């Protein structure tokens, strides 16, 4: 199944023509995150407040006195977009209740990169999710601190070379597996968690629309390819996102009230080598290392398959008298 076939034909019917993330921002050529944000805003529509963590997006889109945002937008600091969002959401609630603002549903949407979500912002995110604020958090994961110059984060994949754990004769680059932030969010028992990638724009926008409708906290982990940091040509951005998904490195799924579902199941999976070999950040990996990555990707994928259709969570369970 190819969900983006004939996209040009269907796109005008599928999405808003209005741009809420305007052109003229300073994102790099081929930036997956800028594209994803543009699509996210279209899916969210006008009644949205964006709360941005410090990172590439805040830097490229709001150089004073310019702004790319046609939606109300606030940025305070790096680790706290979930916290600021909690305050915005609480304010909207009480101001609506007191009749100080229109009684209409305005969604608070927090955004942050992988550093602002997996690492420095994880506590704030966890607190906000646990407290059950009615907001959506979207993590745009480009797998390193790209804004400051490609440093290692908890989201950097195994074997990638970054500027703070570079590959060398005594190092293979990052020697740890990527943190699974979507699972951490599932463990918070929030109503909706999904993974997405702008290489699958309709899937991504559908998830954003769905998340918006949930009362309570929802989370989308969006894989955003960074040609600059991944050392790939900027024209390869969309293709690389598709390879991440089709190799099983980044499966597309959603978890609705605890129930897992693949939104795209590209089996048989492509060999992970096809994904890795195209990227400069993995250039140094030996065939043996790639083989070990392949094994781990399959293991992680199978664990997800188990959660989707191998378990009995939804069966009736009789209790003792």
């Amino acid at each position, binding site marked *: 199944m190819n969900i983006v076939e004939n996209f040009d034909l269907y796109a005008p019917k599928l999405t808003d023509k209005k741009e809420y993330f305007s052109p003229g921002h300073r994102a790099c050529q081929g930036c997956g995150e800028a594209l994803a944000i543009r699509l996210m805003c279209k899916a969210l529509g006008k*009644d949205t407040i964006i709360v941005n963590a410090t990172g590439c997006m805040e*830097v490229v889109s709001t150089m004073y*006195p310019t702004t790319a945002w046609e939606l*109300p937008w*606030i940025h305070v600091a790096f*680790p706290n977009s979930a916290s600021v969002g909690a*305050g915005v959401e609480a*304010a909207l609630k009480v101001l609506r209740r007191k009749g100080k603002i229109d009684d209409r549903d305005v969604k608070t949407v927090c955004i942050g990169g992988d550093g602002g979500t997996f690492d420095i912002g994880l506590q*704030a995110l966890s607190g906000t999710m646990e*407290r059950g604020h009615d907001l959506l958090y979207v993590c745009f994961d480009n797998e390193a601190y790209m804004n400051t110059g490609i440093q290692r984060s908890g989201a950097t994949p195994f074997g990638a070379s970054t500027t703070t754990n570079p590959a060398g004769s005594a190092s293979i680059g990052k020697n740890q597996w990527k943190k699974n932030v979507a699972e951490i969010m599932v463990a918070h028992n929030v109503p909706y968690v999904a993974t997405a990638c702008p290489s699958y724009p309709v899937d991504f926008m559908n998830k954003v629309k769905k998340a918006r409708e949930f009362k309570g906290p929802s989370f989308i982990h969006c894989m955003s390819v960074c040609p600059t940091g991944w050392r790939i040509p900027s024209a390869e951005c969309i293709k690389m996102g598709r390879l991440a998904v089709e190799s099983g490195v980044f499966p597309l799924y959603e978890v609705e009230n605890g129930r897992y579902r693949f939104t795209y199941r590209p089996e048989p999976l492509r060999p992970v080598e096809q994904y890795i070999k195209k990227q400069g950040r993995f250039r140094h990996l030996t065939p043996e290392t790639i083989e070990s990555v392949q094994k781990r990707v399959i293991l992680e994928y199978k664990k997800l398959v188990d959660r989707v259709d191998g378990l009995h969570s939804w069966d009736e369970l009789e209790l003792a008298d």
Partner: protein
Amino acid sequence: MSKRIGMEIALAAAEAVALCRPEVIAAYPITPNTHIPEHLSDIVADGRLDAEFICVESEHTALSACCGASGAGARAFTATSSQGLAYMTEIVPIASAMRLPIVMIIGNRALSGPINIWNDQSDVMYQRDAGWISMFANNGQEVIDMAIQSFKIAEHRDVLLPVNLNLDGFQLTHVVEPMEMPDQAEVDSFLPSFKPLATLHPDKAVSMGTLGLPDIFNEAMEAKDEVLKNSRKVILDVWKEWKQKFGRTYEPIEACKMKGAEIAFLSMGSMGETAEVAVDELRKQGVPVGLLKLRLWRPFPFQELKKAVKGVKVLVVLDRAVSFGGPGGPAFSEVRSALYNEPDKPFVMNEIIGLGGRDVRVEDFVKIIEKAQKALKTKPKEDYEIYGVRGS
């Protein structure tokens, strides 16, 4: 009609804040301020106040959530102490730069380490240059009054800055005092509801907290400095109105027994109450001593200070914080610097006292006066001393 009450000051602070109808309260427990948010959560739980009380997971989030709430147009309040304030540090200067009129009560407590839950003022001094209006209360009544005044000052169109109100941990937070509590109608007539200049709302999309490159950064800092300096006028106006409505006087520096004073103490916070007793005693013994209570820390009251020290020969600045390896306590170095270019200025000496909850007694002021009297004749060479260090 105001009501005479006897209450723990932290609870009275919460009652006063509730009278201001805050809409979002975000706070995290830390001794000794904790009774303030606890009591506010009681008030919200009892339906006496229509507010969102966010039980945050950290102080960093407490202030961040207040920024979000204030940006969205809600009246926002938080309270903290010591490490909690230190943990907020990243957000403190951002709140003022974004011109968000948040009110924060600080139950002043020593910064670690060693860890110590008791009172001094090292926590707020750590935030000195963050661009907030900063005021000190001497007693329970002032806490009530200044909490209410803080919202009015913060939200004034010519100000739009966050305010921190300082009350000494335990010495004030946990003490029961008789106080006058204004009623809701009185507070409502003094403090109108918050009408923000711009808010986060889709009807008019604005971007808040954008990136400032070097070409505008100096200008942004100049603007922040100007607005904080100019807030002085609004603060004085609000205090004038308070006197008219409630009859109690507030001034940037309160002068006690300063007529003919050759030696004067300058204190901040609750220590002023003890110092006042000491000054009364010393005056009875014929010592020409007076007391200045510095209430307004930021914007710093230069004019009032210069006027207040006219004729004083030795000014003893009492600090409850150390600037390690620096020129002395923070209040001392600012006071001395403020007077440096004055042709007729007192000799300024510094006693750093009452750190981490060490008691400051009337006798201590008497001892300090003896030293100040010596300084009248021979000016000591040491800039400052940490008072009462054992074994010294």
